[in-house]
């Protein structure tokens, strides 16, 4: 593509990429730098270089604090909860959305527009507004501060999203093969399992990644519907306390932030193409 671009333009575009990459990476590198600073270096610019950016002496104390030290009891369970809750809500919503999206894109039945419109509308409902009614119900039926009590509201974030993305993906599947299977005498169900599912797998996988990111990012539900038995990392970060009343938790927060960022960065590095396709699939089709 774009073979007609001159070498000059190409190299200028390459140069233009540099500030973009810097702008993207600097805040992340800074979080990493902060997490590697000792408590004294955090408040003392003379112990850091590059304009108070990078520590002269790297300290692993903050990582010790969150993995083996005082913040362990706050961080490790939160990390576990994040993983469990996000995986569970992702799996549930993708499975439900898979059937739903298949039906929407392949079958003719009344109400499919209603489903899509509803999915669109609810995904822009202010999350904070759902918290109080859910809290009120949860405290009465004992779901407050439990893993299922967080998975269910997370579906409100991941399910509408999954329905859309999957519906768009399923449009691109060569359905002739399914029809061919049906001509050969297979039922809808058999056609779905034998032919459609393998074709749809990449789209399903991409949807799962995007749904997982969305759940992983949640702050409001976790902040308000949990206390400690289901608290996820974003909310735990906001409640980190230092080693004592008088120390700031800066280092520990940054170390924890780095730890939770690593998995998503790996996902991005590995599945870059798929994620871009998933995010833009609706708009790209043409």
């Amino acid at each position, binding site marked *: 593509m774009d073979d007609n671009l001159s070498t000059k333009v190409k190299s200028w575009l390459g140069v233009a990429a540099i500030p973009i990459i810097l702008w993207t990476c600097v805040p992340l590198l800074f979080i990493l730098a902060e997490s590697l600073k000792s408590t004294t270096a955090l408040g003392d610019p003379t112990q850091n270089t590059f304009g108070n950016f990078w520590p002269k002496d790297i300290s692993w104390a903050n990582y010790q604090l969150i993995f083996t030290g005082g913040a362990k009891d706050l961080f490790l369970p939160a990390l576990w909860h994040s993983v469990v809750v996000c995986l569970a809500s992702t799996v549930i919503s993708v499975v439900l959305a898979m059937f739903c999206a298949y039906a929407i894109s392949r079958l003719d039945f009344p109400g499919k527009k209603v489903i899509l419109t509803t999915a669109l509308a609810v995904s822009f409902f202010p999350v904070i507004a759902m918290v109080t009614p859910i*809290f009120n119900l949860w405290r009465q039926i004992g779901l407050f501060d439990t893993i299922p009590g967080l998975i269910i509201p997370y579906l409100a974030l991941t399910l509408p999203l999954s329905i859309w993305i999957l519906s768009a993906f399923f449009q691109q599947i060569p359905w002739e093969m399914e029809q061919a299977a049906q001509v050969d005498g297979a039922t809808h169900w058999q056609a779905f399992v034998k032919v459609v599912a393998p074709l749809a797998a990449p789209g399903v996988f991409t949807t799962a990644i995007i749904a997982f990111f969305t759940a992983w990012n949640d702050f409001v539900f976790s902040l308000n519907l949990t206390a400690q038995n289901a608290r996820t990392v974003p909310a735990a970060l906001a409640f980190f306390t*230092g080693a*004592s*009343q*008088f120390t700031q938790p800066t280092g520990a927060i940054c170390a924890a932030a780095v730890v939770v960022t690593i998995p998503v960065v790996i996902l991005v590095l590995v599945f870059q193409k798929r994620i871009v396709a998933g995010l833009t699939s609706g708009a790209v089709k043409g």
Partner: protein
Amino acid sequence: MKRLRSRRRATALAVSVSMLASVGIAACGSSSGGGAGQASLTWFINPDGGGSNPKGGGQAQLAAECSTSKYKINIQLLPNSASDQQTQLLRRLAAGDSSVDLMSVDPAYVTQFAAANYFAPVPAAMVKQIKSGGTVQSSVTASTYNGKIIAVPFWANTQVLWYRKSVAKKAGLDMSKPVTWDQIIAAAQKTHTDIGVQAALYEGYSVWINALVAGAGGSIVDNPNADYQHIKMGLNSAAGRTAAQIIRKVSDTGVGGPALSSSEETQALNLFQAASSSGFLVNWPYVWAALNTPPKVPWINDVGWTEYPESVAGQPARPPFGGIELAVGRSSAHVGLAYQAAQCITSPSHQAQYMIGTGNPAAAKSVYNEPAIKKAFPGGLAALIVQSLDKAATRPLSPYWGDISTALQQRFSPPNNVTSKTPATTQQFVLKVLNGKALL
């Protein structure tokens, strides 16, 4: 993230923790390993100088020492600010969380929880003990709602007036007698020094306003037990206007320092520690440990302390009250054991240990006679603290104090905009907020 605290203060307390060794204290029960019959109690603690370190001299250490073969006390650290602590606890209590056995509750919201019926009733024997006179009066008052003891006094905080002896002398102020706000403002002006106060938009500002109003013989809320429809405010009164006038005067004369509107305890202490501006400071007793811990201020012998300033000449001052009460959750599965633990934690010997370990003053009067306490708070400071505590004015014990306080801070901020009309407009605003006619 309002967690900025001076590192200096941290070191000060860390060092005073090491003094713990000098107090011999026997733990209530021997903490043996977790047997089959051992119950697990969760104690929600506010962060203190000891953090979650079981040897840090704070509540974490008390939890370890008070665990017995019958129960083990685990701690859960609450966030730093009082309002975040309230949110956290309230959510659990409203959800009937049975894991809330013990909690350290700030006086700012203890009545809100009591009114909502979130606390298990205090056993009669403990009520009798609390009322028997061994506890400072302000702490008993703060643990009472609707005439009933609803929580166990743990530690009790109050403010005193810290000053430079040389500055007072230069200004010709006789510090052996009670002084008024007007007098110290004039003295600070004359000597070009500052008065450290708390006037940032936070609970500490309400503490100051409340002390000024109470010192002038008034009260912000006249009937704290009433519900929101029947509440009567006393802010729009002569006492309220006296308080407003003092705040405005501190601001207008510039004696509150350059950043009065963002001044919390730490900033006020920093002002007092800076040689050029050091004159007067109203602050909690931890100041002594902060000043007296290496690197000490060079003029440590010039530091004096006396009772909180009077709002009106001749009318006894009502110093602020703070501290923590212990409460047991209504839904706790181990109410009886939790109260046993509370009994151990609040025993005079543990209160003394905690006072030395963290600088937070005890609620039990007898503690102040202990030699170790007198040594840690020398020169009559221990006696001054207990004397101030008996006179201290609690913030109104209304279930709506959280709203009232926020409204108060907002309408009195920044201090240079406070006028004689501020109490009236604030009172009107608070009543509107409480009746759902205004947002906060």
